[in-house]
């Protein structure tokens, strides 16, 4: 799942701690079995089950009870068209809104399986994936009892294509649907005329501008769900109360403070192959301090027994959880990669870029950032695509460089060879975040030891992402991260490594400001390739880019370590989001 830029920015700075810690005892501690399983990190798996039908029943699960969910991060907009943060998107799709397709957790493999949701199957493409047909199932209802029709789904899609009304939402529909780039949307464009989506009875036909084999994955997004047309779904109102089509509906919602979900009586389990409705209600309390959340969960008293969090436990408390409360600690992967994007326009010498790869203090930076080495961050990272992504190859970007190791002498030698001793590297850090400052200190120390001149530029947590995405800011290194939207290279290379029009679009997610016509062409070529050949082609491209150009130094992969009270059951990690598997939670 793609995390939008602000989220990553904050995560990097340590404020949004969803993706924040990491570590498997690489550094002398043995985290052995408590560490995250590296091979399954971003492995949402390519498992699909187009035939699955509801209702879902969990053996031994009881009905009733209230689940309290705590987090330090706010819940901003809850409009399905705009929910593009891992927390909002995961809560909406898991509990409140339905989409064309959905993921279900597979207990055995620990992976996610793509299954139908409102559509009766996973869609039928034409030969070259330029047209997709979905049949909307009968019997699914909104919380107000109205039957969900194909027209509602179409309107939901059109709505989400309104880039001006929902600037922060995902834009895949605009990018891939035929005419999507020019369509202004029902609010900004005041028009619902959009020929690429056709409704015929209960069948939706979507025409694509380019082949789009990943449509069933895009179909899992809340933006690909039904929204009734009318005054109730104007952006201002709907973000306060999206109409529920899933098992829970909004009872009370104060943006950035709390959210109460109660059972949606109109939801029929027979129509839903993925979700369940065991707890009476969910109470989300956000902007609670991380240390407090950990203490509540460690104590496991009273209400704490039915409490859970989707934040990572703090480094200070991880050991206690893993020693004494192992059964209540849930560790899993997240399909994210953090990297140091070296500005391709400014750091032009490849030897210098290789020197950075030798000089960067991978493990030290993980520790200084407050992460748990081997659990919430993994330092042995090389490929841009995280482990588990289909087609991914293990390779070493710089010859002889073991991923995650630092060798200042080698870096110095390379700098000397390039005639670039005291090469200046300018990068941002958040001065008001102790983690950011500590991380900056170790990076500066390591770079200077390797013969670089490190110039950290101070900024605030609030301004960091804006400064970083300004192509003209006086930086030559941008630290950032990216999480895949779905397990495929197509969710990595077009956004992260394809050149952008800097004047019009800015950097986008291409933080290395990487631009090589050859790579651009290759990306376009791969997108046109037959589906079964794509994964390997992406894996090759990953290696080619790193070995030939090295525009980014991959610094770490991520995992997550969450905790829950002793009465919460079914809390696993949805590796697509790095969030809890909401669909299987019940209270004992």
């Amino acid at each position: 799942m793609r995390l939008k830029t602000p989220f990553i920015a904050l995560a990097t700075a340590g404020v949004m701690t969803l993706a924040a810690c990491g570590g498997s005892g690489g550094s002398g501690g043995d985290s052995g079995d408590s560490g995250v399983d590296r091979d399954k990190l971003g492995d949402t798996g390519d498992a699909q089950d187009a035939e699955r039908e509801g209702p879902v029943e969990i053996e031994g699960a009881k009905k009733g009870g209230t689940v309290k969910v705590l987090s330090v991060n706010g819940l901003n907009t809850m409009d399905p068209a705009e929910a593009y943060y891992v927390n909002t998107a995961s809560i909406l799709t898991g509990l409140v809104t339905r989409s064309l397709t959905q993921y279900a957790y597979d207990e055995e493999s620990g992976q996610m399986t793509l299954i139908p949701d409102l559509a009766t199957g996973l869609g039928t493409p034409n030969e070259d994936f330029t047209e997709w047909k979905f049949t909307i199932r009968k019997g699914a209802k909104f919380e107000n009892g109205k039957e969900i029709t194909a027209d509602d789904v179409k309107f939901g899609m059109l709505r989400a294509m309104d880039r001006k009304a929902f600037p922060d939402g995902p834009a895949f529909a605009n990018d891939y649907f035929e005419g999507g780039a020019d369509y202004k949307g029902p609010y900004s464009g005041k028009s619902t005329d959009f020929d690429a989506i056709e409704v015929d009875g209960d069948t939706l036909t979507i025409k694509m501008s380019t082949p789009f084999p990943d449509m069933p994955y895009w179909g899992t997004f809340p933006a690909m769900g039904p929204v009734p047309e009318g005054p109730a779904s104007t952006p201002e109102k709907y973000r306060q109360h999206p109409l529920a089509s899933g098992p829970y509906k909004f009872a009370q919602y104060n943006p950035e403070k709390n959210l109460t979900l109660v059972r949606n009586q109109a939801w029929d389990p027979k129509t839903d192959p993925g979700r369940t409705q065991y707890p009476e209600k969910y109470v989300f309390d956000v902007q609670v301090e991380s240390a407090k959340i950990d203490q509540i969960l460690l104590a496991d008293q009273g209400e704490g027994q039915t409490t859970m969090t989707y934040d990572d436990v703090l480094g200070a408390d991880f050991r206690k959880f893993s020693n004494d409360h192992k059964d209540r600690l849930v560790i899993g992967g997240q399909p994210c990669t953090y990297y140091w994007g070296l500005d391709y326009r400014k750091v032009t010498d490849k030897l210098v870029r290789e020197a950075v790869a030798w000089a960067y203090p991978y493990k030290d930076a993980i520790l200084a950032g407050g992460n748990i080495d081997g659990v919430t961050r993994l330092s042995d990272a090389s490929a841009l695509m995280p482990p588990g992504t289909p087609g991914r190859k293990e390779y070493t970007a710089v010859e002889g460089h073991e991923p995650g190791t630092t060798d200042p002498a080698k870096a110095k030698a390379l700098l000397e060879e390039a005639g670039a001793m005291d090469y200046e590297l300018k990068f941002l850090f958040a001065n008001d975040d102790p983690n950011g400052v500590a991380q900056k200190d170790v990076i500066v120390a390591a770079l200077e030891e390797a013969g670089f001149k490190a110039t950290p530029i101070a900024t605030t947590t609030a301004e960091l992402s804006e400064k970083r995405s300004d192509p003209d800011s006086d930086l030559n290194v941008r630290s950032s991260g990216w999480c895949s939207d779905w397990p495929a290279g197509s969710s990595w290379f077009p956004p992260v490594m394809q050149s952008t029009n800097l004047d019009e679009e800015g950097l986008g997610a291409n933080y290395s400001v990487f631009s090589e016509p050859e790579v651009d062409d290759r990306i376009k070529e791969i997108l046109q390739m037959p589906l079964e050949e794509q994964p390997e082609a992406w894996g090759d491209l990953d290696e080619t880019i790193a070995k030939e150009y090295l525009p980014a130094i991959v610094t770490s992969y991520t995992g997550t370590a969450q905790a829950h009270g002793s009465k919460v059951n079914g809390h696993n990690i949805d590796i697509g989001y790095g969030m809890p598997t909401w669909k299987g939670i019940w209270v004992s």
Partner: protein
Amino acid sequence: MSQPPIATETLGSFSEDPAPGDAPTSKKKNGNVAKSPTQIALTRLRKDRVALVCGTIVLLLVVLGVFAPLITHLLDIHEKQEPGLPGLTELLEYDGFPAIGPPYYPFTWEHPLGIAPQTGYDNLARLLYGVRTSLLVSTLATVLSTLIGVTIGLMAGFARGWPDRILSFIIDLFLSFPFLLGALCLAPIITSRFSADVDKLGRAQLLALVGVLVVFGWMSLARLVRGQVLSLREREFIQSALVIGVPTRRILFKELLPNLVAPIVVAVSLMLPAYVAAEAGLSFLGIGLTGIPSLGQTINVAYGYFDAYSLYLWAPVIVVMVLVVALNLLGDSIRDAFDPKTRR
């Protein structure tokens, strides 16, 4: 972190001095006949055991702070991550807890108070530098706000009429301005202004912190001095000085100021601990110092470890507490010593 409270009840006044009009400067040559109020106060202080103990503690902390670089050098401990020192991977375990010393390993002389989780800083070095920063900030702020407060108070009290009203209005204006809000607004401005040079940013933050403390700290002293001047102004020795045409400057500095020494000393001695606490508080909130070691900042990062690694949290907390309590008690003793109304 509110404004330094300088309680009005601390105002020792000399109006009940048995010899009215006898300015302390006009010391009689014959020492055994009369002592200046300051001398009396010092004699009293010397007999006060609380004052002696607190004075010793404060002196000790001052020495530790002043000689922090020397002490850390002698012990070979470092307050910062520097090239050439062992990397974090050697100091810390996978979850950021120290791999040397407390809480999981035995005591070591290499790091007498252990090392900080996550950053690997030596706790003792951070503590010493923190004390140094605390004392530096609070002393600077105290000196500056005393200067400003006394000057404005003297002018307002002596001027009468419009100037007094304007100055009093300014005092009230600054009193009504929310202190925390000002500090909160200033922090990001400073950061963006000095973003390119981290060393300069550190100095700018230090000065800005002193500035904030001074801007919101001088008013109570100014009010206090103004009140004192208002009453002294009508006394005979001032009146006669005016009549014989003594220049205003001379009246202010030679006639009035010496009579104000006691309330000023008292106010200063109570301002100092308030500033120490305010510095720690602001740094705890993340709007004070970030680049420089500071006790408040250490407490801020350490409070999550209260259970797992309590030494890390308690060491700076106890030092701040001891420093503030010692300064406060010393201030109380000074007030008592200067107050002619207390007879012990």
